[in-house]
């Protein structure tokens, strides 16, 4: 990150901190949602942007974590301190199982992850005595630890913001580490990385599980925000949307998935309130991204800056 990057990050942080001063509850809710889905997109991008694996089952970890936390909190009155970690564990355990999909590559990996995603959706949908079927689980309370409890959407926004910043920092350390470097090596050329002595399969498996953990974290944050979860959260479109967010914002970057999430959710929830053909706007944005900004918004900005620097140098 250059000096401009740090400046931008600080400016964004300042805006994020003061946001509740000038934004109403609807906007606070929407921005919270953007942060949470940005985190989900970031988890997808750990695979897509760093290792080149295209996973379409991340909604599964997201939903299983959300359901676990919701069911424990609502039906068994388990306190947040246990229910939230339990959600993380459940989602990560699922990732440990689904991670075996990294034995395949390319289109086979995509197909297997789609199938796995549908299994989870099917179970949540059909096993209605336990999951509530279509009606899902309602009345999830705000998180509370002992006397400390979150009482409003604004307080929850700050909580989510803190978690997201912590995740972004850890993610940055992770991709800068030798492990992260080896992941990018695998993306560039798996055979070469393997011939250098790396156990590429194991690296990919570890990346998959970490990515599942991150998606589970997004799931737990989501269920406390929405206070309701139903099988739609495990559905195929959610996985696709998370991938789209990463691609539109800029795959392989940290800010990208959050920017993408902001654009997609913003278009859907805000533009739809005054423009009926908002779906068309989304379609145009997708096409424009593919045509003119294949590296997403962040890639586009970098390209423009590089071009300006080159002009200056001349």
């Amino acid at each position, binding site marked *: 990150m250059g000096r401009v990057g740090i400046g931008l990050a600080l400016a964004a942080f300042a805006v994020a901190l003061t946001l509740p001063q000038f934004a109403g*509850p609807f906007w606070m809710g929407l921005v919270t949602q953007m942060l949470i889905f940005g985190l989900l997109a970031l988890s997808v991008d750990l695979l897509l942007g760093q290792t080149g694996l295209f996973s379409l089952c991340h909604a599964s970890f997201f939903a299983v974590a959300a359901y676990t936390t919701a069911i424990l909190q609502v039906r068994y009155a388990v306190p947040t301190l246990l229910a939230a970690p339990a959600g993380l564990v459940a989602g990560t355990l699922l990732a440990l199982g689904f991670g075996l999909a990294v034995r395949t590559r390319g289109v086979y990996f995509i197909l297997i992850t789609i199938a796995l995603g549908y299994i989870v959706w099917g179970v949540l949908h059909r096993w209605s005595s336990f999951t509530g079927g279509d009606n*899902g689980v309602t009345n999830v309370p705000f998180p509370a630890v002992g006397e400390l409890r979150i009482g409003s959407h604004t307080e929850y926004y700050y909580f989510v913001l803190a978690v997201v910043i912590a995740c972004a920092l850890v993610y940055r350390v992770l991709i800068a580490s030798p492990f992260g470097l080896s992941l990018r090596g695998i993306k560039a050329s798996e055979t070469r990385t393997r011939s250098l002595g790396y156990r590429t399969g194991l690296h990919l498996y570890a990346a998959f599980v970490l990515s599942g953990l991150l998606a589970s974290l997004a799931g737990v944050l989501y269920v406390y925000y929405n206070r*309701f979860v139903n099988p739609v959260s495990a559905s195929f479109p959610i996985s696709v949307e998370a991938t789209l967010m990463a691609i539109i914002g800029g795959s392989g970057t940290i800010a990208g998935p959050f920017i993408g999430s902001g654009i997609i959710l913003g278009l859907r*929830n805000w533009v739809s309130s005054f423009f009926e053909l908002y779906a068309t706007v989304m379609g145009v944005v997708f096409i424009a991204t593919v045509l003119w900004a294949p590296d997403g918004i962040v890639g586009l900005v970098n390209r423009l800056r590089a071009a300006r620097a080159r002009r200056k140098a001349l």
Partner: protein
Amino acid sequence: MTRDRIRRSLRGLAALLAAVGLAAPGAAYAQGGPIKIGLLVPLTGPLATPGRDMVDGFNLFWEQARHTAGGRKVEIVVADTTCNPDQAITQARRMVHQEKVHFMVGPLCGHEGPAVAQVSKETGVPLLMDTAGADTVTKWDRTPTVVRTAVSASQIGHPWGEYMYKELGLRNVTFIGQDYTWGHEVTLGAVKTFTALGGKVAKIIWNPIGTKDYGPTIAAIPAESDGVSAVVVGVDRVRLFEAWFNFGMDKKKKIYGGYWMHQDALPQMDERAIGLIGNSLHYAAGLDTPENKAFTEAFATKHKRLPSWFAESAYTTGLWSKTAVDSIQGKIEDRAAFLNAMRTAQIKAPRGPLRMDGYDNPVQNVYISKIQKIKHPVLGEVMTNVPIKTYPAVSQFWTWTPEEFLKQGPYKR
């Protein structure tokens, strides 16, 4: 819609100018300010057509009522829920926090129901649930600020089971059901009353929403069953219809619609539908009452088509809420009084007389209807559902007491 926005902004500007010019009558303005209603319906996605019907029905009512209730102006804000609970929650929160609506109407899709009810619960803004039909909302999982103005899923299933046994004389029925909550509850409600009388279930075949091919379903119907009951929604209604006739099943077996040939799907079907029993529902566009005639004629004049039950339901929700607001002299800010007025009002709707039971669900007629071609004063020759049998004042608990029914638990496949 855009014009509405412009009008609203102009009105806002006028109000602002008035406030700047005359600071004193500000309080009076707040008292008589407009009543805002948030209508949450899918305008895009798989259920966009019924969503549009709801908007048309709702607007028709308020146009007839000149956009006034309890002496105050009424403003309607529409939001697109896309039939996705996440979107529904966000839009409901927008309605409450951004648009500051006094109460909400909607949503349409069953699984959006609990999501929007959640927002009503956390903010205290009343929700008139229309047309989401999840049984649990008015049975096991009730919210004090939510009342239903449409129908519970199994409320239309119960009479259907009895009708098949008693009037159609069926004894061994194959049930085709749509595989999601509404489909389960309607189908299993009919199975319950049908088997209670002694009927036998040959087979229940579940199909997910959006099933492309009904061939396998039709092939799976056991030869010995003496009738088929269909509960299908969305585009599946037309697919089942086509498959049934393409396979020549009309010559082999009898099929009856428990929830099938609604008015919005009839234009996509053809004359082969005539004579079939199409629905067991709380509304049929061919209903012969003065209220319904006035309603269907006004709707047909405006939209060049007959209303579906979604349009009627939204229209009636408008009527019901206006009746309630009128009875409390427009003091919509008193939420408890408004909800109480909703719960105690007696309504003469196009679909018949309505009142709430003690569990916030309407007690209403259920009509078994046959598809017939009628001469409509506005539209000329048109196919529609004509009632052939009426079950008057059906409760969501059918003949059981609420306690008995609640003890049984929800219908689940």
